[in-house]
């Protein structure tokens, strides 16, 4: 998977969890909680969706690495490459 595939998949899951977000207007460095307004339940649902899609465990200590779309794509790419 290329980073742009991962990015598209990530935005897919994100907008499924938060249907009122417009994928066009989400910036790569937007903070999911502070800028996009996800609460802890939304965030956990996003992690669950990514877990199902990519088959990665995504333990709680790794949560900060998913703070923005840019960070998340980077993290997912690294984990998938392992």
């Amino acid at each position: 998977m290329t980073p742009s595939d991962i990015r598209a998949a990530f935005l897919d899951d994100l907008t499924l969890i938060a249907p009122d977000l417009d994928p066009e207007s989400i910036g790569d460095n937007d903070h999911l909680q502070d800028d996009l307004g996800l609460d802890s339940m939304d965030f956990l649902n996003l992690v669950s969706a990514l877990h199902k899609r990519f088959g990665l465990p995504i333990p709680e200590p790794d949560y900060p690495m998913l703070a923005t779309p840019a960070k998340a794509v980077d993290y997912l790419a690294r984990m998938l490459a392992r």
Partner: protein
Amino acid sequence: MSIFTMPSLGADMEEGKLVEWLVKPGDHVAKGDIVAVVETQKGAIEIEIFEAGEIGELLAQPGQTLPVGAPLARLGAADAAEATIAPVAAPISPELPAPAAPAKALPATTASPVPTGPALASPAARGRAAELGLALDAIAGSGPGGAVLLADVETQAKVQPAPGSGPVTPQKGKPGLDMAEMRRAIAAAMSRSKREIPHYYLSHEIDLQAAQDWLTTTNATRTPDQRLLMGALLIRATVRALARVPELNGRFEGDAYTPSDAVHCGLAVAMRGGGLIAPAILDAQGMAADAIMDAMRDIVVRTRAGRLRNSEITQGTITISSLGETGVDALFGVIYPPQVALVGFGAPRLKPMVRDDIVQPRLAITATLAADHRVSDGRRGALFLAEIDRLMQEPDTP
């Protein structure tokens, strides 16, 4: 045989728009089945039926805005003969086009034993009224039996400018939440609360470190979809603490307070566009943390998607409002009538706390209670917050 009517979805609701029927005449329904979708100030709500039987006739069409209490469908007893359904009153012409005009505000029919259906009107009048966005009921009919004719619609159109422009089409799927409407609904409920309920407030800081440590250990071995949030533990502790202080869990209706054995625990869910909805987790009293987590996830997802059920937004017996991880220290809530208490949780933060005579950094949260002084006093409220604290120190209790 009985009539299924537009339910009230809260003291602040006067009317709702029928969006979609999920049943058709001849369908058998059981108590609790979802039969229709109604759009309200709180978004689209799935309407449950509280009686078993067979759907006789649908009296309202998708797209119609109807007042609370207006007839929506005829419901026959499960074994009723066909004959009992037919003759009583069917003022709707068979060629009634669907969707009909948004027939706003049927005249109050509460006194009349025979419910009125949509207004009589010629197909041309109906079409033109829908086009103009006019309510047929509001138009004086000059035709046979008071039926509204095309000319009547044109006359009315000159007096009354159309509320909206263009034809009204029934909406499906995710509702377009009207923020102005939601703000009005919140204003009405909160004004009533502050007018009628003598609030008192208590605040208490709770050490969450034991709960956090337990969560970290528990979640480490779980896949994301099985993990728990602190919110689930806070709800569980709140629900269980209510068992000791029943004067905080119930409803104040008319002039009397009725405590509730069941805890239908409302959760204030913030909408990202602004506003909030407080649907309830029904019968939360016996739920373990995992069950509460599942119920919480389900209700938040459905709140966001606009798929709540009417029982969830009308039967709450207490409400919890939580600011989440990025909020401020404490919130002092306004009680959601007819409830008598609201529990607020601020953002959990690391705080210096004294444990075993030593100052330590501990995760802490400020819990607050807004309660109704007509029903309880500060002493009982304090007992309640202390009980939540005590329960949060025993997170591994199943």
